[in-house]
């Protein structure tokens, strides 16, 4: 941990005393009760079960045509894309952006309150597999937590942006970075790590939320002597990937955290024959110790870079006439899964994308895929193509939304394929210090037909796709559902969509000007329901294939716009036309001190003197 205790304590004290009087804090109880709280959006998945379902009904299928932009906030920088789910608390939006930057913005007006830039060094970019994305932050007490591209976990005062503590989670020079939102559990803040293409060994780590001291750390690839280590030949477990680069979910009743795991490494699977536990799967962890209670692999012996990282949804539902405590997950490999989260038992897996060919099907009892050997490349052999889905995935990291009343799960799903060619085994070796560890060539095949991008509603009870919305561009956004029967998502062209949850009809759209690769949220303040969505394409892999304009904006919508009035500090006035006379004596262009517009004035800044 990076901490000078005296200095940190003094800084923390200063921060606490500097907090605005009466600023509300976020308690663990608030997080437990987040489902009923429509003013705020307190965690990545909104609630611990990550349903992203908001019980708000001011905006309905009948009136959604009146939805208009209220305001937009620009994050600036070099616009490498916005993948975040913004959080809302006490009238403030916390929006993370590329390069691990963080903005606090007034949720009613879009006026900035503070910003944080960890100033990531240029050489760190060598461990970015897929852009400088950040997917969000976490809140507890008076702190907001963000992970950084150089693998630090930073806690900031949520009211001022002052750094309270920071912890070195891992050594970025060995390929580790953090792109996912942390997860607060009780009095801890949990984070995973990225780096599955650089020979890391993935883990989840828990830190004391107040001090930043590490509580526990659990590798998701078992070490020698641990159950499952024998699924790795030789020393391959040391560099086997299994990154944990998205955000987990939590079941307080079971005291269990569920975290998703990424691809096995290297991509060339011929050097690591075996199931490669627990990559490309879900692990259930004891929330207090990190102990692995169970694991389930969607793609054992992952030969296609099939990360299993879309955050799962927890729901207690009737399936096949039985009450089930389910964990739902849509996977890169093209199947939608239901597991019993109390045991990790497979319940079902349904194909969502057409033409899946890496497997001939799933075992109906265990869910284990019957791998199609024709779709497994050989070291030094020819390219195998087309493999469906591509390694870009039927879905990637994007979060799902669940309407519990309608029992519909909403998510993006893309139809595309790839070619895969494995290098000869003398062409690559385990990394010494954060080198790429792939051992494979990959070629993406994009469909330019009418339905590359799909947005899907899946009936979890009847195990059927209820409807799809197709787009010529991929979808790359998370989903949001509201109790009024609306679903929100966006496509790579930048169209933000409101969709009828029952029929799949697109009821409203708005062109945001850049690809939507973040996740929408909704909240209500002063009787006004807002819907917010980050818009900023070019973040990550999609920038390979699509050239939509770069941007980094947070768009916020409300019925009839509800544009906030210009603040009394803004100093905008209308002046009747008049032409001043040249040399008119006695006038000056100075004469007023402009109040601080936007970010607070730095105390050291000299005010403009009156003339």
């Amino acid at each position, binding site marked *: 941990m990076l901490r000078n205790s005296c200095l940190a304590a003094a800084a923390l004290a200063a921060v606490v005393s500097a907090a605005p009087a009466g600023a509300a804090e976020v308690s663990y109880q608030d997080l437990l009760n987040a489902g009923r709280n429509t003013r705020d959006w307190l965690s990545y998945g909104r609630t611990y079960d990550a349903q992203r379902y908001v019980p708000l009904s001011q905006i309905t299928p009948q009136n959604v045509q009146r939805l208009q932009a209220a305001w937009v906030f620009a994050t600036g920088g*070099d616009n*490498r894309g916005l993948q975040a789910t913004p959080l809302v608390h006490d009238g403030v939006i916390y929006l993370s952006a590329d390069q691990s930057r963080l903005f606090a913005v007034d949720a009613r007006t879009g006026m900035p309150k503070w910003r944080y830039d960890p100033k990531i*060094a*240029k*050489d*760190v*970019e*060598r461990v*970015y*597999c897929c*852009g*400088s994305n950040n997917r969000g932050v976490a809140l507890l007490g008076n702190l907001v937590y963000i992970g950084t591209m150089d693998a630090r976990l930073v806690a900031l005062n949520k009211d001022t942006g002052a750094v309270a503590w920071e912890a070195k989670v891992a050594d970025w020079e060995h390929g580790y970075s953090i792109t996912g939102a942390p997860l607060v559990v009780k009095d801890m803040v949990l984070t995973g790590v990225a780096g599955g*293409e650089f020979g890391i060994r993935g883990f989840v780590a828990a830190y004391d939320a107040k001090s930043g001291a590490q509580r526990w750390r659990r590798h998701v690839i078992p070490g020698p002597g641990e159950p499952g280590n024998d699924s790795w030949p030789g020393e391959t477990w040391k560099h086997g990937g299994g990154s944990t680069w998205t955000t987990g979910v939590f079941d307080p009743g079971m005291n269990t955290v569920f975290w998703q795991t990424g691809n096995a490494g290297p991509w060339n699977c011929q050097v690591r024959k075996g199931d490669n536990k627990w990559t490309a799967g879900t692990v259930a962890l004891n929330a207090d110790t990190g102990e692995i209670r169970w694991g389930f692999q969607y793609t054992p012996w992952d030969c296609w870079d099939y990360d299993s990282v879309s955050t799962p949804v927890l729901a207690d539902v009737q399936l096949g006439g039985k009450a089930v405590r389910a964990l739902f997950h849509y996977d890169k490999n093209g199947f939608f899964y239901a597991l019993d989260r109390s045991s990790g038992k497979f319940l079902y897996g349904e194909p969502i994308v057409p033409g899946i060919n890496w497997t001939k099907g799933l075992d109906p009892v265990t869910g284990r895929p019957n791998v199609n050997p024709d779709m497994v490349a050989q070291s030094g052999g020819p390219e195998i193509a087309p493999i469906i889905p591509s390694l870009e995935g039927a879905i990637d990291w994007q979060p799902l939304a669940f309407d519990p009343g309608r029992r519909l799960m909403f998510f993006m799903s893309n139809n595309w394929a790839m070619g895969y060619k494995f*290098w000869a085994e003398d*062409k*690559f070796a385990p*990394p010494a210090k954060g*080198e*790429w*560890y*792939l051992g494979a*060539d*990959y*070629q993406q095949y994009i469909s330019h037909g009418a339905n590359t991008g799909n947005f899907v509603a899946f009936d979890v009870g009847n195990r059927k796709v209820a409807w799809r919305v197709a787009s010529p561009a991929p979808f790359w956004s998370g989903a949001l559902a509201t109790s009024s029967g609306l679903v929100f998502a966006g496509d790579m062209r930048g169209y933000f969509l409101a969709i009828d949850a029952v029929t799949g009809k697109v009821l409203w759209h708005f062109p945001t000007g850049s690809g939507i690769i973040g996740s929408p949220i909704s909240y209500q303040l002063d009787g006004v329901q807002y819907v917010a969505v980050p818009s900023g394409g070019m973040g990550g*892999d999609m*920038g*390979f294939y699509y050239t939509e304009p770069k941007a980094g904006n947070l768009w916020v919508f409300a019925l009839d716009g509800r544009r906030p009035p210009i603040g009394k500090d803004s100093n905008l006035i209308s002046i009747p036309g008049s032409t001043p006379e040249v040399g008119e004596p006695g006038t000056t262009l100075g004469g007023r001190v402009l109040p601080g517009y936007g970010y607070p004035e730095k105390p050291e800044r000299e005010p403009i003197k009156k003339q």
Partner: protein
Amino acid sequence: MPGASAPGVRGWIAGALASAALGAGVAGEQETPPAAENPYFDQKEALDEGEKLYRIRCYGCHFRAGGRGPNLFRSKLTLVQFVEIVAKGGGPGMPAWGGTLSGEDILKLHAFVMSRDRL
């Protein structure tokens, strides 16, 4: 054996990397060599080393023939420009390799990508 211009190029790159490490522009205070030719163009061992470096340092973005990053095998950059960008970093996404790769590494990498059309 490296060509006749090798010592000049090597000296320039060593100086350039040192100035990059100090935060100056790579070419900054260094006089650009008049005819910067890569001494490794015809050296098989060096080309093999360059290929190895390409696979572990460049492939993840530049792929077989361009990907997230441009196609280096058809690069129009001069040797000097190539060294500058590799050492100091380029636009968003292109890291600064000056702290990781040596001048010799960069020369071998350059010789390799100039020696063929694709990986």
